[in-house]
């Protein structure tokens, strides 16, 4: 499983990068699992993802909930609630 992760707004600032390619360990099957894994992976991840309720996600451009299954490959965008308009 090779996923491109892209980060936005304060998630991007806390991670210190705009995107990266990752291969999550076995057992990381959903968006919620991915956020949990990132929160434990390193310090920036903990800072960005320790409050999963504040994180929204999109899989290949479609909004996806915490229970959504991760694709084998694709782009996962992770970001705070949107504030346009």
């Amino acid at each position, binding site marked *: 499983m090779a996923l491109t992760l*892209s980060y*936005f*707004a*304060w998630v991007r600032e806390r991670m210190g990068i705009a995107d990266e390619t990752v291969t999550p360990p076995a057992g990381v099957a959903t968006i919620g699992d991915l956020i949990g894994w990132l929160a434990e992976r390193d310090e920036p991840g903990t800072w960005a993802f320790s409050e999963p309720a504040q994180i929204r996600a*999109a899989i290949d*451009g479609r*909004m996806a909930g915490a229970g959504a299954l991760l694709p084998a490959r694709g782009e996962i*965008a992770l*970001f*705070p*609630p*949107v*504030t*346009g*308009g």
Partner: protein
Amino acid sequence: MIRVAVGAGAIDVAAEMAAHHAGGHGASASFVGRVRGDGGLTELFLEHHPVLTPGGLEQLAAEAAARWKLAALTLIHRVGSMAPGETIVLVLASSAHRAEALAAVEFLIDRLKTDVMLWKREAFADGRVGWVEQRDGDHARAERWEQSAD
């Protein structure tokens, strides 16, 4: 005619209105959102996704066009750095009668605030910089459109 645009350049409201109204529609409604200078705000920055932000706006425009009988729809959102007084968003909707044009504009601005990948960052004269948090009221307004039949 549907026109959707996302860009860092200033929105020329007069020119957009002239182009939109060239169709001579019976009823037109508009919403213009501008940067407020409250609390010593000096800059508003809008972060976006190069693909998903325009895609999200196009999807909303298509939903509005499917929901109401619209003769023309213009939906333009600015991104990047803006100063107080500058236009952030412009929504224009036209129909044969007022009810549909007014409803479409309200639907688009409400849903824009919860569904499209855009994030506001504020900078103030005293040096404070921070990301704007989503307001609970925005969700309540956006969800009304799920419940009502039209």
